[in-house]
């Protein structure tokens, strides 16, 4: 792979992310010029109190949450596709997102989470961590499970979670709670503040940093378990740790964003076409691309539809689904 092309992709991605963040800070019900936005961002004391508050209290934490979640989901998507040797693998394939959803919906509909601002993210994270522990138990007790079986384990967990969510929603005490739960399930970044940044920042950063150190193992695992095992990878341990870290990163991300699909699928696929499949390039650029994708989707969700309510996850799927379809068909023809 031509290194100039890779650096160019990284530079263009970083520049686009910068521009998208600037646009996202400037656009919305309170609209600002880029100069006003930059002034409020870097010298808030000299900007008007209202502008500074919009930038620092409302928009910036939301953008950081979107960037963290996008980076996490896209990177984990690339990791899952390598470990499970399945191009359709995405962060939620092990059932961890469904676990987070059970936690969040339970927290919302049973009213236990609403009383505290950290309540829903923590309930969601507990759900995700529970699934991660179940997964760990399964992988620990049956070290011979292949990728296809792991995917089927995820399918079972997701089905079970779906059933629990339906019970919780059907028995919610009032409609407002149902609406709130449905919003969470659609991936909504409304009202995300610095608390949410704090919740996601540490696990996502540590998790991604760990995943970036495993690029050689991921390259080998993508060739199959037997080749990985004879290429210096302790397959059982490596796969268990990678799946666990991936599950926890996904759990931390989904806990603050709700269910956001397609980022983990579209971004790594698109990037493979540009920079190839070597994980040394794919993982960092997936993080960058995922952040860019979700910040852009969130900006559109927040600013493009006026009074019409559209969640970030909905925009991600609205854009992601046709792009993904076009990409698959194009690749098939190639």
């Amino acid at each position, binding site marked *: 792979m031509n290194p100039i092309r890779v650096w160019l992709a990284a530079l263009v991605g970083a520049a686009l992310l910068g521009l998208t963040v600037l646009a996202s800070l400037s656009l919305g019900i309170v609209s600002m010029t880029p100069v006003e936005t930059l002034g409020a961002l870097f010298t808030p004391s000299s900007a008007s109190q209202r502008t500074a508050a919009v930038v620092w209290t409302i928009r910036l934490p939301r953008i950081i949450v979107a960037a963290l979640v996008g980076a996490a989901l896209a990177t984990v998507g690339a990791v899952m596709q390598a470990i499970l040797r399945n191009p359709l693998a995405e962060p939620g394939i092990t059932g961890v997102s469904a676990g987070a959803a059970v936690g969040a919906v339970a927290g919302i509909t049973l009213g236990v989470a609403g009383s505290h601002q950290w309540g829903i993210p923590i309930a969601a994270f507990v759900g995700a961590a529970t699934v991660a522990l179940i997964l760990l138990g399964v992988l620990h007790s049956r070290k011979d499970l292949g990728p296809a079986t792991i995917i089927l384990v995820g399918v079972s967990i997701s089905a079970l979670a779906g059933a629990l969510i339906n019970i919780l929603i059907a028995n919610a005490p009032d409609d407002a709670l149902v609406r709130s739960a449905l919003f969470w399930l659609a991936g909504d970044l409304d009202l995300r503040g610095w608390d949410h940044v704090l919740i996601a920042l540490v696990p996502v950063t540590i998790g991604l940093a760990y995943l970036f150190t495993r690029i050689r193992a991921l*390259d080998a695992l*993508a060739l199959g*378990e*037997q080749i990985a095992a004879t*290429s210096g990878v*302790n397959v059982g341990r490596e796969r268990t740790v990678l799946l666990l870290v991936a599950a926890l990163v996904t759990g931390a991300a989904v806990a603050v964003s709700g269910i956001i699909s397609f980022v983990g699928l579209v971004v790594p696929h698109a990037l493979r076409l540009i920079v*190839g499949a070597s994980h040394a390039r794919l993982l960092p650029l997936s993080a960058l691309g995922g952040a860019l994708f979700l910040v852009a989707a969130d900006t559109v969700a927040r600013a493009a539809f006026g009074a019409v309510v559209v969640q970030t996850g909905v925009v991600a799927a609205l854009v992601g689904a046709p792009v993904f379809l076009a990409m698959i068909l194009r690749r098939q023809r190639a």
Partner: protein
Amino acid sequence: MSTLSDLVLSEFGAVRGGRALGDPLDLRVAPGTVLGVVGPNGVGKSSLLGALAQAGVPSFGRAALGGRDLGSLRARERARLVSLLTQDLRAPDELRVGELVQIGAWASRRDDPDAAARTALEQAGIPELVDRRYGALSGGQRQLTQIARVLAQNTPVVVLDEPTSALDLYHQRAVEQTMRRLGNDGKIVIAALHDLTLALNTCTQILLLERGGGARTGRPHDALRPEHVYAAYGVRTSIHTTPLGRSVLTTDDV
């Protein structure tokens, strides 16, 4: 003569579905040996190779190289000793051939993975593919790419599962020559083969696995005598010799 780098199998075998595949094997393989593992479908050739390479296939008994039990070594240490070509040739479509081959060089911690990969691609006869996408390759080119990955790993034991199954005549001959060259270089080559003519002409030793679980070892012309082949495969065969001295195994039934 045995040396410190012999591969020694003691009461060794692969396990599938919780059951031992075949009788326990006792075998000593000296450096320079090209061992052909042959036998009918389902007899456990690939499983034996996977078990021997410690590639995650369950096994019983002991496989040791130079006295070191391969099963108790760390994966990173073992990757310097044993490399494996599997029949599963799948890899990400967007991976470049050179990058895939480098995985072999990384596995054994070669000093210059890029140079090692290029040399291996030349040895495999496909240097021109270095920048090609894996997804754009034919089945045969994929097999050669994976063979180059194994060559780049440069281990004393090279395990090849059906290395010529997807190859045309020209590349079959090239792989045959590569296997002989590896043997001449003092490596131990263990290859599962369906093509008994290839086995006769390339291998220095044969392990013929039989359906009942038994195994026969010996020099190619002894192990693959028509009565032994009949016992293993249920097919009557003859061995002919071409004017250039090459052996050809044909079936007698029309």
